């Protein structure tokens, strides 16, 4: 008997417009000690399924049908007091955001002890001992000291470790982990997933791992369930689902994920976006977007659980199809530099108020967000910046756009020095450069109509002409980015995230710029939508000859987009190289570390050793090479003397003493094994 059995689960939300079904006829089971991955786009119903299992659906949500059995005993209809005893003791849960999962007003120890004593008959002293053991277990150094500290004294990664300890401390047999790493930094994510995997395996606890990161699933899960619009699209062993998906949706999804390796011209793209719960199409929910749709799809919903082949027609669609790589279009490589940055610096003063400085006699401090950066972006090409959160990527973008003034260095655009010209001026230059932002929900003024949003740059630069001309221009732009001209009269909230990002793009290109700064334009989007946007951007570059400064922390996306890649660490560029060179032959240990964090979609089941250490504090970076505390190759020189960027053979530049001295083994980064393979 399976540990957990979910049968025909249905989760409903009564609203004024009728009852919404967020999860519909979902059935699956989880065996003792098994890790079941659950993937799917945002809103697919992953979290709702998890919440239903643990009995924590937020009202007015309710279980509208089906059964949930734990050890064969129904738990979906338990009275609240009984269900409470199941939670924590038999089923534990980990939520997405470690920053908000812990009560800020109680010490970590208090929260642990209270959980342990709620479920296990234990004296306070024993519980304390147990709690400290748990802290040690999840890798918190000096656990007995940390025991009495408050959550805010822990870093994000540490907090998620504490959350794991809390979820496991009453020794449940099933853990529901809902995107446990999404809010964390790339370099920390791998550590947390490894930890979760280890402690659960050791205790033979089963895990339902909800995520949208296929790489994590590939590495971690035994089986995987793919959800779409509240329904299960496909479920099966990881290898089978990832390599030989049966459902066109899964196939499309897999294809739309950018990978490291040779750079295709297009990603496979599923058109449209997931339907809203209010209008899920009849029959197979995926049918409007499905390339393989046939008549039956419009009538027959998903089949029974027994039928592994979820889709009406066995798909011939394979990931490989997408890789029918068109030959890389020959760029009209006019290698003249369009944008050039020299010695760029931005220091944020962290000065305390006057009185504090006077009394505490403290030196003024500053965050060196950007600290001496040199970049050249050739016309018509893409240069990407990668690096951990807080390393200064966005600050560079803002400096270039004139949203803030540099503390040092200069920026020239097409030979014109714009280092100290505020945003929007000189208009002649600024209208040639525009920006696309990260958050599609925040980058459009919610009170403005789309038409006005897109026309604003035209009006500001006086390019709009008559109302009629402006109207036509906006319609043209909307259609160019793949929207309908009618959409101009709507408000942003009437669009999905992907559509909003298209609106953003339409606004950015309305002044016919040559240069676009894109600050993580897809990191808030689902993979299928991300593929659409990335494809659009590539098309635009081809058609309009645009030059991009592209910012991301996702190396696979960067690989798809870039000609050049710059790696930043604590405000400095540690390595910059042509894209392929960087992946194949990284020089800087930090670049290697980054490459090492990329989860392996190739199912090689290799044991990644996640790099130790946390993202350092930018206020007081370590002396010498900033990376030295995390660097396996660090020596005394690294700890005292800051390296400078030096060109190396393949056209790249690196700033590293070890690389220069040829010290240490040339590590072949893990992701590369896969990247050199060709598609199956």
């Amino acid at each position, binding site marked *: 008997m399976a540990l957990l059995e979910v049968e025909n689960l249905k989760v409903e939300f009564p609203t*004024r417009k009728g009852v919404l079904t967020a999860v519909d006829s979902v059935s699956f089971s989880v065996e003792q000690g098994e890790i079941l991955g659950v993937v799917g786009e945002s809103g697919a119903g992953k979290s709702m399924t998890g919440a239903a299992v643990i009995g924590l659906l937020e009202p007015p949500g309710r279980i509208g049908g089906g059964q949930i059995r734990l050890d064969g005993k129904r738990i979906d209809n338990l009275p609240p007091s009984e269900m409470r005893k199941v939670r924590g003791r038999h089923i534990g849960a980990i939520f997405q955001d470690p920053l908000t999962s812990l009560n800020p007003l109680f010490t970590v120890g208090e929260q642990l002890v209270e959980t342990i004593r709620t479920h296990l008959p234990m004296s306070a002293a024993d519980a304390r001992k147990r709690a400290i053991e748990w802290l040690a277990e999840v890798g918190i150094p000096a656990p007995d000291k940390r025991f009495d500290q408050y959550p805010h004294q822990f870093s994000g990664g540490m907090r998620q470790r504490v959350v794991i300890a809390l979820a496991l401390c009453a020794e449940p047999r099933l853990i529901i982990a809902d995107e446990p790493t999404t809010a964390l930094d790339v370099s920390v994510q791998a550590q947390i997933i490894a930890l979760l995997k280890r402690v659960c395996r050791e205790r033979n606890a089963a895990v339902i791992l909800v995520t949208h990161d296929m790489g994590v699933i590939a590495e971690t899960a035994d089986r995987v369930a793919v959800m779409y619009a509240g329904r299960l699209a496909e479920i099966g062993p990881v290898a089978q689902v990832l390599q030989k998906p049966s459902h066109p949706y899964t196939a499309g999804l897999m294809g739309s994920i950018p990978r490291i390796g040779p750079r295709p011209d297009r990603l496979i793209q599923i058109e449209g976006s997931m339907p809203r719960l209010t209008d899920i199409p009849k029959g197979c929910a995926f049918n409007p977007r499905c390339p393989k749709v046939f008549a039956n799809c419009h009538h027959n919903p998903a089949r029974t659980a027994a039928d592994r082949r979820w889709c009406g027609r066995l798909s011939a669609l394979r990931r490989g199809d997408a890789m029918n790589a068109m030959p890389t279009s020959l760029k009209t490589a006019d290698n003249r530099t369009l944008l050039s940055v020299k010695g760029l610096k931005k220091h944020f003063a962290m000065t305390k108020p006057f009185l504090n400085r006077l009394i505490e006699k403290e030196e003024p401090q500053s965050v060196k967000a950007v600290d001496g950066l040199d970049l050249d972006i050739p016309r018509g090409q893409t240069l990407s910046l990668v690096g951990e959160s807080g390393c200064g990527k966005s600050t560079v973008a*803002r400096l270039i*756009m*004139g*949203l803030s003034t540099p503390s040092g260095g200069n920026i020239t655009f097409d030979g014109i020095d714009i280092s100290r010209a505020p*945003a*929007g*001026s000189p*208009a002649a230059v*600024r209208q040639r450069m*525009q*920006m696309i*932002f*990260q*958050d599609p929900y*925040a*980058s*459009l*003024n*919610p*009170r403005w*109509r789309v038409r006005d949003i897109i026309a*604003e*740059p035209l009006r*500001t*630069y006086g390019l709009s002409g008559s109302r009629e001309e402006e109207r036509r221009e906006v319609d043209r732009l909307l259609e160019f980015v793949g929207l309908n001209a009618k959409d101009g*009269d*709507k*408000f942003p909230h*009437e669009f999905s995230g992907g559509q909003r990002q298209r609106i*953003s793009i339409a*606004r950015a290109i309305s002044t016919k710029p040559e240069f676009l700064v894109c600050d993580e334009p897809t990191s808030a989007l689902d993979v299928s939508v991300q593929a659409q946007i990335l494809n659009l951007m590539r098309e635009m570059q081809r058609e309009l000859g645009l030059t991009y400064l592209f910012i991301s922390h996702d190396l696979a996306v960067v690989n798809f987009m870039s000609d050049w890649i710059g790696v930043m660490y604590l405000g400095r560029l540690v390595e910059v190289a042509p894209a392929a060179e960087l992946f194949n032959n990284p020089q800087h240990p930090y670049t290697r570390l980054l490459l090492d964090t990329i989860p392996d979609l190739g199912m090689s089941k290799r044991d990644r050793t996640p790099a130790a250490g946390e993202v350092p504090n930018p206020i007081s970076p370590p002396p010498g090479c900033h990376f030295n505390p995390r660097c396996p190759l660090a020596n005394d020189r690294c700890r005292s003397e800051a390296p400078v960027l030096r060109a190396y053979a393949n056209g790249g530049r690196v700033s590293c003493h070890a690389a220069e001295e040829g010290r240490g083994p040339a590590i072949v980064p893990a992701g590369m094994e896969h990247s050199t393979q060709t598609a199956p």
Partner: protein
Amino acid sequence: MSDTSFTGRLRSFADSDLFYSFRRSKTTVIASIALALLVFLAVFAPVISPHNPFDIAGLNLLDSELPPSWQEGGNPAYLLGTDTQARDVLSSLLYGLRISLLVGFASVILAAVLGVFLGLVGGFVGGIADAIIMRIADVLLSFPAILVALLINGVMRGILPANQQDSAAIVVLVLSIGLTNWVQYARTVRGSTLVERQREYVQAARTIGVGPLRIMLTHIMPNVLGPVLVLATINLGMAVLTEATLSFLGVGMPATQPSLGTLIRVGNEYLFSGIWWVVIFPSATLAVLVLAVNLIGDWLRDALNPKLR
């Protein structure tokens, strides 16, 4: 859905979540009807009132202290009776309501406009301007509002020439209540402005080169007005009550131009003497007014708070 015509907008409002949650809350619907009625009565007081309480030549002391018309000794010409000055209670009530609402609305608008503007400037411009505005706000906040109102009232009265004091009483009250209340708006707006300013749509406008004033007014302001609306509603009730309290302390509306508060203050002296109608009716009206406004404010706060949906 995105019909731009008026009827279209009306339909989309009728279809909106806000209206739905409004319709579902019975107390709010009743409160709104009550408030609408009171506002209607106040606006049309000159038309509706059977008598003109300001027409002193029409008063005859012989008719003073008549009980409500349904009581023994009542006069049908005076539905709710007359006061000690022979004024028709119903008429002075309607005019009093008019003045109370006028003071309430005007002071709320003053406070809101001032607060929103200063909050926007403080939040958006920052630096010295922000520091100055917030320090003034701190001083005002460090002091009970009613005392501040008393202070401002005292100064205003002193500055005005004697013969204009009565006619200016409304203005003085509006200023003293308005000037004490803007701080809440300013703080709220400043807080949201600080958040909105960081939002990417503002950055987008800046990269385009839109000027700060335009950004402030066309981009940020529409997005920070939600909480202001809630505050304004709740403050309307508070302002009407504050006026009544100031009247109790002797600095409210003069007896020749009574507000509800003044009527209650004066009528209060007759509480033991059996002329209950001069105090009960104004008090009840005031209570209904404040209650209705508070209920609406309550509902609005919940309805506009995304976290509570």
